[in-house]
């Protein structure tokens, strides 16, 4: 199975202290994965698909656990202007 980096839309909640928590992950195909709990956050490189950031290990409403990475985004002058989320997408082998 191949894997690739997939940027996804995420609804998140930021508390008064500035701590951000993902709430719902929206895949490009329309599927939604509500997050029931963030089990841990840790800064980590994604060794399989590349990239680095804060890795949120989440439990999802459908069951199962997965990682969502929060990656910094800069403008041309390298000032941080925000962040985006990515996940690992598994691609089935196209041909036998």
């Amino acid at each position, binding site marked *: 199975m191949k894997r690739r980096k997939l940027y996804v839309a995420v609804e998140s909640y930021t508390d008064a202290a500035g701590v951000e928590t993902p709430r719902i992950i929206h895949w490009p195909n329309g599927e939604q994965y509500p997050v029931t709990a963030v089990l841990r956050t840790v800064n980590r*490189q994604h060794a399989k698909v590349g990239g*680095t950031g804060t890795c949120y290990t989440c439990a999802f409403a459908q069951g199962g656990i997965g990682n969502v990475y929060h990656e910094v985004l*800069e403008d*041309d002058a*390298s000032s941080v202007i925000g962040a985006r989320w990515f996940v690992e997408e598994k691609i089935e082998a196209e041909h036998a």
Partner: protein
Amino acid sequence: METCIAHVDANCFYASVEMAEHPELLGKAIAVCGDPANRHGIILTASYPAKRKGVKTAMAIWEAKALCPELILVRADLRLYMRYSRYTRDIFYRYTDRVEPFGLDEAWLGLRGCPACGGEPLRIVQAISDAFKRELGITCSIGLSFSKVYAKLGSDYKKPDAITVFDRANYRERVFPLPVSDLLYVGRATTRKLNEMGIYTIGDLATCDPARLQRKLGKMGLVVHRFANGYDDEHICQVGDRAPVKSVGNSWTTPRDLTEDTDAWVVFMLLCESVGARLRELGCKCRGIEISVRDASLSWFSRQTVLPMPTNITEELTAAACALFRCHYHWSKGLRSLGVRGFDLVWSDEPVQLRLDIDANRQEELMRLDGAIDDLRRRYGFSIVQRAKVWTRPELARLDARHDNVVHPHGYFGQMEGL
């Protein structure tokens, strides 16, 4: 004295970051360059498999391809490298607030009295090395010693992914046999002079009579003698530690209000000529540039930026100042005064990571041009040579930025206040 100064150097930084972002490149011969399509462009950083084939930093792309036909060229992405650079600093700050960055991929850390890891510097640097791998997917070489210069030698001693300790017990045996050119601030010219004196290793230099060195090399002779012996000021300049500012600046209140971009360009060019000339005189480059802007109502602001690579080239300073200006001023009012300051100075012959978007030949040309202009002006006065575009504003062109206005060096090089 404790071994509590570390120098951390990310291995093949640009190439490693590309591999951390694109794991499919791992283990392959890759090279980062400004423009992969330009055969005459140069290699900025190569991965180890490419290095083993003979690919080197600053080599032309065609040359590298000839040595290593399977070489994968990657277009440099400075934004990405700056992001990883910030992450490396975030890691350092978990252990110490004494962090002195040196380019994007190197830093000195002061670890004396840091409570992490039981207060043991060796365990702290091991933790840092692990964090680099786990969090960033890149490796680093770390030197740990009792002086900054020895710590830097240590990070060069063994690569990649290594920790080298030079302590009081082993430095004579391990540091002294190294070639004298490995020492920080010992560039090609100094090496040649030292070799003429029969000094080839750091040990030769350390045990040489300092008076003899001073006769041959002047003040610098004493400096490198101290370095060779592992004495330096040990002061790690903290980021945001503005007190020991080392900068050169100049400002000018113009004879008439400035009203558009060409006016501003002319004044910035004149100011940067003076700041550049002063930097070159000091044998320095600046890593950052600041502009100050005062409008006709005398309200004032300043903005600064870090340069992609240290420079003292007039044209590069001017381009940076103008870019900063265009970002932050939109001619709501005429201007009365402009200023430029180069800060965060480094010695000119210090090794630096090559820049992405400028080819080395062009830079060499610009340096020679500046040298020629400096020379002419020293001999025949400021007005003997002038850039043509400056004369599109003759009423502004008459500033001898170098002499009519005070140029303010401070910190290392003097005690005067800047702008």
